[in-house]
Each structure stands twice: as structure tokens, then as C-alpha cells.
């Protein structure tokens, strides 16, 4: 018995010794620039015990912005990863400021997210637009366009801009939603609420170029994503160039937007989801070789806020291989006074399903004074297509309200001068196409 306890004791001691000596060293590291790799144009400096990357002309932005901040026009602001303006903070961007996104995909994709309750004050002007582009774009101070990137094919070089608000949306379930591509535990990705007059700030004379990289979970980011943005927000004179996914996508919300131009996107130019209930006015579109539909319109997804209806009016849309418009999933709203030109022979205006077809029949979806400068031999009846085949009169009704013609009617008050001076399109001499 004695021997046994000695042995047990010995065992215990051995283990306790190991146990106490297995701790970690807690030495405080000395901050040096040895392991800091700064991006091109930056140099590492140690100040106040922090190693940082400095540049006289560039300013690196990463992490979240939780207090008011101003981005001044005397620097080029480089987005390094996802930057979320949250905690009610206001990000002010001076007119004429250039913001460049670094490359990277997934969680490393550069994007600017304005969270619900926070604001962006990006009030550019026709002479001093605010430009979001890729780090590899050679544009610099005082310029409106760079020269090294192909305007049509240089897509997906960085992320995009996401503005989120408290206005009503109709998501799959409930009244709020997480914006696609951002995991649920990133709270700044949440949007939707009940404030129709919600104000997310000012976003004017802004051009967003060469973005749309994969942001996460197989999702590419849109040029400008508006999730639950309220009518108190001022958004006009916005341009999206060469984005991988959609140009501008509305997820619910009530904001009114005007004077927009989308060019060379990889998916749809203007996309509506979750019962967007605002108006888009005076908008332009130039398709590229991999662009899909000019308009892709979905309806409310769930049972909450099911009545939101949008209006799109006075537009000029220049097509390529993609279709005119795709209406699906309970699409509802009004589209009028649009002029389509340059689209292919097989381009169509489609009602994808029974519910959408019924919405058209009962007047929840209105399509009027759409004028198609279609290729020779294409009649108005060739353009309309009810895929559900539920409404035998669709072609006839559509033909009454809309027409094929190569002249933009006067009722369509589209005015390309809204894009003069500040836009990429104008500076590359493309406004002449309208």
C-alpha cells in the first residue's frame, strides 16, 4: 500500500511539473517595421508604438469607421479591404476626391459599406466629381479619367459601394435582411426597417469604375447597391462603368434617384428587388459584349411590405447582345418613356412567370410608351413574351401601349446633358451615342 501511494504521488508530481511549465511566454513585442509590408507608394513608419504605412499623396483606409471622418481631395484614398461606416458615423467625401480600391476577393475585397443609421456625404459637383476606381487605374489628381484601363473589359478589379438604410423592404422573411456576400455576424451588413423618409446622406456626381469583384459566398458586388435606402437620401448624377455584376441594384427602399448612367456591366444594368418603391428618372445605358438585361425587375419576396412599387421613366438604353427587360418574381411597378436601340434581333421584354403575368394583367405592372429601335423585321409583337402563357392578350396589349420606331418620342424627356463634363462617358467621348 505504501509503495502504491509513493508511486501515485510520483505520477502526480511529474504531471504537475509539466502542467506548470507548459505556460506561454508573455513578452511584449517591440514594434518595428520589419514585418510590415506597405503597398506601393507607401512607406512604413513607427509612431506612438504603432507601425503604419505613410504616403504624402495616398491614404490607406481599412477596418471600420465608427466616428465622423472626412476624406479630402488632396489625397487619393486607397480602400484596403471592406470598410464599413457604422455606429451612426458620417463619412464626408470632398468634391473632386479620388478613391481607389485595392485588388482582392472574398473578405479581402475592397468595398465601401455605409451601414444602416450611418451617413455618407459625398456631394460631388459637375466640375469636381467623386471617382471610385481601381488601384491600378492611373488616374490622378485633377483628372476625370485614367488612360491605362480598357473601358469595357477592365472589370472586377475591386469591389463597389453599398449604401444601407432603414426604409421598408420585402425580404424573404421578416422586415430586415443581410446584404448578399457579407456573413450574418457582420452586423454592418444589415438593412431594412420602417422609416420611409430615412436619410443615408448625399451621393451626387459620383462615378464608380472597374469594380464588382467577388465579395463572398459566390457573390459579386454591384457597382452601387442600395439596400433599404430611404427617401430622405439624395442620390443623383451617378455613373457605374465596367462592373462585373449589376450596375445599380435596388433592394427595397424608397429613395428617388435621377441622372444615372451605367456602361459595360457584366450582368444587368438596373436591377430591382424586394419591393423598391422609389423613382428612377433620366437614366442612360450603354451595353457591353457581356452585358445581360438592361432591366431586371423582381417583386417583393416575402409577406411584409408587399405593396412597394417603383417607377422608371425617361431613359435611353443602348443595347448589345443582352435582352431588354426581364420581369419576374411578382414584379410590380411602372416603366414608361424609354427608348431602346442597338439591341439584338432576339432581345425581348419577358414576363417570366404566372404571378408577374397576372400583375401585368391587373395593372400592378405597367409598361407604356416604350419605344424600340429594333433591327429590321422585328415587330412590337416579336419583342413581348409572356413565358407563363397565362395572358393570351399580352402581345396585343403590349403592342397598344408601346411601339417599334427609330425616333425617340418627345414624351420621353431623357436629357443627356445631365452627364456632360463630370462623367467617364463624356470624357471618353461616348455621349454622342445618345
Amino acid at each position, binding site marked *: *500500500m505504501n509503495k502504491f501511494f509513493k508511486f501515485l504521488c510520483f505520477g502526480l508530481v511529474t504531471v504537475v511539473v509539466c502542467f506548470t511549465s507548459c505556460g506561454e511566454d508573455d513578452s511584449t513585442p517591440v514594434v518595428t517595421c520589419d514585418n510590415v509590408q506597405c503597398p506601393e507608394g507607401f512607406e512604413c513608419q513607427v509612431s506612438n508604438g504603432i507601425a503604419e504605412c505613410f504616403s504624402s499623396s495616398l491614404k490607406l483606409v481599412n477596418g471600420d469607421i465608427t466616428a465622423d471622418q472626412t476624406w479630402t481631395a488632396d489625397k487619393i484614398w486607397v480602400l484596403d479591404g*471592406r470598410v464599413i461606416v457604422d455606429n451612426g458615423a458620417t463619412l464626408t467625401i470632398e468634391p473632386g476626391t479620388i478613391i481607389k480600391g485595392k485588388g*482582392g476577393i*472574398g*473578405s479581402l475585397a475592397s468595398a465601401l459599406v455605409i451601414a444602416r443609421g450611418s451617413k455618407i456625404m459625398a456631394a460631388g459637383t459637375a466640375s469636381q466629381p467623386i471617382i471610385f476606381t481601381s488601384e491600378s487605374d492611373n488616374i490622378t489628381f485633377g483628372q476625370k479619367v485614367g488612360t491605362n484601363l480598357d473601358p469595357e473589359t*477592365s472589370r472586377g478589379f475591386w469591389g463597389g459601394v453599398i449604401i444601407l438604410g432603414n426604409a421598408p423592404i420585402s425580404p424573404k422573411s421578416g422586415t430586415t435582411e443581410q446584404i448578399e456576400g457579407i456573413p*450574418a*455576424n457582420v452586423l454592418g451588413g444589415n438593412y431594412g426597417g420602417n422609416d420611409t423618409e430615412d436619410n443615408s446622406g448625399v451621393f451626387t456626381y459620383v462615378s464608380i469604375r472597374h469594380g464588382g469583384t467577388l465579395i463572398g459566398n459566390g457573390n459579386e458586388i454591384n457597382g452601387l447597391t442600395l439596400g433599404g435606402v430611404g427617401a430622405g437620401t439624395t442620390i443623383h448624377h451617378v455613373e457605374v462603368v465596367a462592373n462585373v455584376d449589376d450596375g445599380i441594384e435596388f433592394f427595397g427602399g424608397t429613395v428617388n434617384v435621377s441622372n444615372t448612367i451605367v456602361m459595360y456591366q457584366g450582368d444587368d444594368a438596373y436591377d430591382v428587388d424586394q419591393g423598391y418603391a422609389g423613382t428612377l428618372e433620366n437614366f442612360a445605358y450603354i451595353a457591353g459584349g457581356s452585358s445581360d438585361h438592361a432591366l431586371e425587375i423582381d417583386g417583393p419576396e416575402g409577406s411584409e411590405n408587399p405593396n412597394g412599387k417603383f417607377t422608371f421613366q425617361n431613359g435611353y438604353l443602348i443595347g448589345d447582345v443582352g435582352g431588354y427587360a426581364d420581369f419576374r418574381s411578382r414584379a410590380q411597378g411602372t416603366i414608361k418613356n424609354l427608348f431602346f436601340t442597338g439591341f439584338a434581333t432576339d432581345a425581348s421584354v419577358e414576363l417570366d412567370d404566372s404571378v408577374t403575368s397576372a400583375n401585368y394583367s391587373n395593372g400592378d405592372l405597367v409598361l407604356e410608351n416604350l419605344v424600340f429601335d429594333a433591327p429590321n423585321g422585328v415587330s412590337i409583337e416579336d419583342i413581348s413574351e409572356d413565358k407563363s402563357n397565362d395572358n393570351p392578350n399580352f402581345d396585343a396589349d403590349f403592342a397598344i401601349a408601346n411601339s417599334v420606331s427609330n425616333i425617340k418620342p418627345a414624351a420621353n424627356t431623357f436629357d443627356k446633358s445631365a452627364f456632360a463634363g463630370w462623367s467617364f462617358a463624356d470624357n471618353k467621348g461616348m455621349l454622342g451615342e445618345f
Partner: protein
Amino acid sequence: MDTLKEAPRDRNFLLFFIKIQIQMKQFILFISTILFAYTLTAQSGTIRGIVIDDDLGETVIGANVYVGNGAAYGTFTDIDGAYNLNVPAGTHTLTFSYTSYTTQTINEVVVKEGEVTVIDIRMKEATELIEEVVVTAKSIKNTESALLTMQKKSANVIDGVSAQAIAKSGDSDVGEAIKRVTGVTVEGGKNVYVRGLGDRYTKTILNEMELPSLDPDRNTIQIDLFPTNIVDNIVVYKTFTPDLAGDFTGGTVDIKLKDFPEQKIFNISASLGYNSVTSFNNQFLTYDSKSADIFGLGADNRALPLDKDALTPLPVFSTELEEQTRSFGSNMSTQTTSPFLNQSYNISLGNQINRDKVTLGYSAALGYKNNNTHLEDAVINQYWKNSNKSINGLVDIETDISQISTNEVLWNGLLNGSVKFGNTSSSLSLFHTQDGIKTASRGNTTTGDESGTPNTTLERHVLYYNQRSISNAVFDVRHVLPKQKLEFSFKASPSLSLNKEPDIRQTIYNTEDGGYSLNPGEGGLVSRVYRDLQEFAVNGKFDVKKEFKMKTGEAKIKGGAAYFTKFRDFSVVEYNFRESGNDMIFTGDPNQLFEDKSLYDATTNTGIYVSGQTEPSNTYEASQDVLGFYVMSEMPLSKKIKVIYGARAEKVTMKYTGSNQTGMSFDKETVLDNFDILPSMNLVYNMKENMNWRASYSRTLVRPSFKEKSIAQIYDAITNTTFIGNIDLEQTYINNVDLRWEYFFNQGEILSVSGFYKQFQDPIELVAYSAETPNDLQPRNVGDAAVIGVELEARKKLNFFSEKLDGLSLGTNISLIRSTVEMNETEYNARLTEVREGETIDRERDMQGQSPYIVNAYLNYSNIESGLEANLSYNIQGERLSIVGISRNPDIYESPFHSVNFRLAKQLGKDKQWRVSLAAKNLLNASRKMTYQSFGDVEELYRLRKPGMSFSLGIACRL
């Protein structure tokens, strides 16, 4: 080995391998010595066996065993209760005697020249009435002996399968053998569940040592890796005693290898298998025929050509980008082939050599399997609840039908050497498993919505290779002081497991417009993903046992310490390929994308280019250290009542390094630091001979896995779900109460009824925790849960009906289980939001993964004389909640799978050295199915897989 050399911090792993190699050299020397020794002894015959105390179920040390009057041939049992007698060939009378035991004499023991006759006996304590028992050798054959005695006498609730039982049923691997144990389910022939509790609550160990799993997200090792002829027994511990590691609740399955085989083993076996869906099906898909694939070593052929930490350049006339893009292999398409039969080969050998003072034992096994599996029209759908809450019917959101073909190569080698001299025995086991899984699949996805019209159609091509391996060594030394009745044992075991998923190639085309396009906004994608996991573990254990006499009988006190540490390193890097320019016309053949003329050209700045880098939120390092101590005692309170009580203390530390998408980052920070005392109390009331009542209480715990207790965010493109780690997870504590009545009637027959109750504090479930992102899944400590169950086991020979039925036996075990878990607020509210008209939402639901019932039944026929064995078995596991629904996602249930298997084996030849066996699996041609279930008896298909029927013909030869 190659990858180890590349990474300097893996120096320890390398040293470990060098050590193994040195040990292997010594081992080969050792084996050649014993093989040489064996040839010298093959002149006379041998009697061997084990002597067991019939009351305690333990081996008897120092019993006298002799032939005739003992003058010429006699010996004493050693520290394992084993004896070895070399006697002249002929018929002998064998006598066993020991102080205070009834002397037993066995007549008609036939010993043949050069052969081993095995006689295991049970000795009873001497009574005044019986002083000597005389039986014939024939009558003590064919018993369940040791294990059943152990089960009968064990302090805790154990079930198991002995080597004898396995030999009778003809099961060739542990996965088949263990199905006969009460409350055990074997999923896919390899993963064990006890009492219907999920993998999290079951643990599989080898020779009392923890081994890493081939599948890094599982707790248990794959048990079909072990051929039954080198297994001594498999024990399933269902209640906790302090000498077991405290992290289980359903059961711990211990596979014990034979240290000293009683007889020479030299078996070679081969089998060919036919599957009704796969074999010779010319629609079987494959890709990349690399010669290393047939050894399960194909990962190096698919290694990442780039530096995983560097971001690829952008397509701005970049020659670097051109170089990087063109460094990837060009094969993206599946090919069809017609696969041959499944094949399996095994060699196992073993023996023991007895010298005056020394007994040597060895066994070795080498196995190779090459299996093809084809899943025809495998379905994975997505349904939502209707947005209109008065409609109960579900909405078809996505339909996906795939053809999935898999070729799996699995080989394993095991070497076990043991030596016993005087009162010390020691053994070293080396174990390596190598697994290579090559999967090629093609599928079509249609997404839709409430209107029912398809929005998007996709065509998917996926090429996947997974190489996994485990290398492990177990060193074991045991010393017994018989006079002091003291036993010391020490075990140490290092192991290394690797899991490589190199170059997961996905091409997803959009097909809705008739032709093929890659529209990233609508699901079009070309990607190549590389995942890599390494886990290194060291396990050590020291135990001391002391026996002493009390007035009421033999008592035991046992104590010890254990240390278990493991370290994991995981990384993912993903590359996407897109087109610069708009010139390509897609033919739909994924190989087109990687043709020379399609790839990015820096001079024109057009073509398919690569984009990607390591995703930091997918990458982590973690370690876990567990230090345990225990003291326990087993003592008879009276002649009939025995109590075992004690406690185990465990101290755990988990450390984590990694970062996530919310800017959180950890650098070797301690994320779990607990000290727990786990008490245990077991009572056995031996009401009468062969009948026991048992009661036990214990507290155990379950720890979160590395992946769960992390901040990793891992997207799985195949299921379109994102796994979000939860760094705040706490350990789950379980209070276990067990009651059991058992009756052992004739030899090998048993009837038992058990009841159990488990109360879970902070159980962990994988839940969709946010109604807004139902495809983001996170492990969470959900509300408290309780499981209550009843188990019935019966094993009966059928010869009481008629003599003709001699050899037939029927066995069944049935478990009925009820589980409840309290929903957390998020889940409850999300269910309320989508409540249908007339539906009520309870605060409680079934526990995830818990089956309400499990039934195993079998009919056995075994005739030792004719060498004919047959076995028909049926297994079923009740419908269980598989994925907890949230928002408009309904709950998903896994349907019961009715598994009916048949096996027939016949021994042939003069000495029955040949054995031919025929096995048939899934005779009902059942499908594996999971369904969405929603209010109003609405059911829709979530997942469907049709494995088909399998038949195999095997031949084995004993040399």
C-alpha cells in the same frame, strides 16, 4: 512526407517519422528472430489459453496448469492469465488449480504436432460442495467466454463483441462486427453512433488511446480500417468510469488489438464486389488518371502552382498574370468510363513465441481497398415556406440533379509487437492509413421562385480529390507485482493526420439562354480551391491499480494521470477564373477554358485569367491540451452488491490563432480554460447467479471541436452554406443516469433491459441562427436538452425448439429514445414569424441528430463441424432532425434507411484452411433520403441518394 520537409515548423513531425523508421527497423529484426525461433519449436504440440475468474471476470495470475499428474508438463499463468504448454502430440488431460479456486480438469484435450490447441477456462471460487469440476475439451469450445464474462462482471455498463463472436459471424471488419452491439449504429459502414446520439457524443479509441479521425470534423476514427482477425475485442462503454477520458456521453468504443495471438495467423484474403448501380456502368465519371491515385497519394500531382499568400496581379497587360494563369493544370472536364468491380485485399499475420522467461507476440496487417461508387440522379433541392402564410405547401426554389462518381482507394498497414518477461509486458503498435478519394460530378441546377417558372439554369462540373492519412504509434508498458497485487501501466501515443483537398475544380455555366455563358451575377463560376489541414497529437497515460481483500470480497483502487495535446493548422485558398474581354464563345466543355488559346495573353490583354489569394477568415491554427487525473475504487459492499465510485479531474486549455471578417483577430490566445471534476458512481447488485441489476450516475462533458470553437468563416460551394465558427462556445456538460437489468442464461445468451436519462447543459447544435441569412450555419450552445431512452437486448440460441436448429441463434436489440431541446429566442421568434394558419409553435423540439428509435436484429447460423456460417441482419434508425429550419427554411429530417444484409461463408479443405464467403448488402435496394417537413403534413425532397445493392465474393486462405 514531402510537404513536411517543406515546412520548417513541422520539424517535430519529421522527427516523429524518423523515430518510427528506426523503430520499424528494429521491429523487422525482431520479427525475423521470432520467425526463426518458430521453426525450431514446431516439433511438439502446444496448449495455450487464458484463465478467467468466473466471479470477477478478470484473468487469474499464477494459476497452476499441468498435463497428467503435473510431473512432466506444468506451468503457471502469467500476468495476463495466459499459459503456454509444449507437450507431445496426443490426447491429454489438463488440470487447472489455484488456491481458493475449484480445481478444473479438462479431459480429451487433443494436441496435434506443430499445432496449437486453445483452451480458455473460467475458474470458480471453491465452495464446500464442489471441489473439482471435470469436463471434456469439446464442451468448453464455442463459448462467448471472456468478453461476456467481462460484461457480466464489469462495474460499468459495457457491451461488446469478442473475437469469438466475430469469428462466428464471419464479419471481416470491425464496422460490420460492431453492428451487433445494442444501441450502436454504423453510418456508411465506418462511423459509429451509440444510442442514436450524434458523432459529437461518441468516441472511438484504439487500445485505450485516442486517434485522430480521417475526417477532421469528426470525433471518431473510421472503424472499417481494422480487419477483425487482428482484433481481440471491441468494447462499448456506455457509462463513464473515471479511468476513461471524460468527453463522451453516448459511448466510448474501444478497439483492442491482439497482443499475443494464441495461434499462428497467416491469412490472405481477396474479394470482388459488384454494385448494381456502379459496376460496369458506362456513365461512371472520372478525370485525371494519375498513377499515384491508385495508392491514395494523388495530392502532389494536384498541388497549388502559386504562392498562396500572394495576390494575383490584375489583367493590365501583365506577363506575371499570364505566367500564373498558365501554371494551372488544364483538365476541367469529366470523362466517362466503365468501372471494374470493387476490390479488397488483406494480409494479416501474427503469432506468439514462448521461451522460458519471455513471451513474444506480433501481428501485422496490410489491407488495400479500391471502391467505386456512382450516384445516379442524386438530388439536392431547396424549398421554402410560401410567403403567403395561409398556404402550407412549400415553394420549389432550387432543384439540383447530379451524377456523382467516386473512386476511393484506402490502404492501411499495422504492425504490432509485444514482449512479456516475468511481470512486465510491453508493446508497440504502428499504424498508418492512407485514403485517396477522387470525385467527379456533373449536375444541373434550376432555380425558381413562388411563381414556379425557372429563373436560372446552371450546369455544374466538379472535380475533387481528397487525400487523407493518419500515422500513429502506440507504446505501452505494464508491470505487475502479483504478491502486492499492484499493477502499473504507461501508454504513449503520437499521431499525425493530414487532410489535403488540392485543386477542387468547379465550372458552372449558365444555360438559360440556350447556349453557355458565365454570368457571375447569376451563379456562373470557374474556380479552383485548395484546402490543407494538418493535425498532430500526443496522448500519454499512466495508471496504477491495487487490489486488496476486504471481508466482503476483492476490492480495487485505481488512479492515474493522462495528458492529451493536439495541434491543428488549416488553410484555404481560392482562385476564380474570369475572362478579360468578351471574345469567347463557350462550347460548354470546361476544358475549353484552359486551352492554350483561351488563356490570358498579356500582349492582347484578353483571355481567361486567374484571380485569388488566401482567404484569412478561412485559415486558422488551434491547439488543445487536456490534463486529467483520477482516483477510483471498486469495492464489494456485501457478497451481492459492488460499488465503483471515483472522480476524474480534467483541465483543458484551447488556444486559437486566426482572424475573421469583423476585424477580430487572435494570436495564440486562450479561448477555453476549464477545470472540471467529473464524479462517477456505479452500483451492481448481483441478485442471483447470472442476473444483475445496475445503477449508475456520472457527469461527463463534451468539448467543441477546433473548427467549431473558432472565428473561421468557411464557405462550402457544394451546399451553398457558410460555416461560421463560434469562439464563445462553452463545453457541454451531461448528467448521465443509467439503470440496467441483465440476465445471462445459457452460454452466450443474454437478455437485458436498460433505461437511461441524460440531461444536457449547453448542448452544441449547428444552427441557422439568423433569419436573414438562413444559409449561414453556426455551432451554438442551445437551450438545455434531455434525452431519455430504453434499450432491450436479447440473444438466444434456437436449439430449444428443436435439435435441428442447433447452431441457429437470434439476436435483437432495440433502443427507444425521446429527446427534447429548448429553443433559443432567435429560433423561436423566427418560427413565430413564419407560422402557418392553425399552426402552434412549441418552445421545445427534438434534439438535432437524435433518432427516436434504433433496431438491430440478426439471425445467425454457425456450424463448426461443417464450417458453414450464415448471417442475416437488419438495421434501422428512426427519422431524425438533421438540419434545424429557420425563417422560411423548413426543418429537414433524415428518413429511416432500412438496411438488410446477408452473408454466407463456408470453410473448405481438409483443415478448413479455405474460406469462401458471399455477402449481399442493402438487399431492399433502399435509398438515403432527407426531406423538408412543414406544417400540415407537407413533405418535400431535400436530398436523395441511391446507393444500390452490393454483392461481394471473397476468398480467404489460412496458411
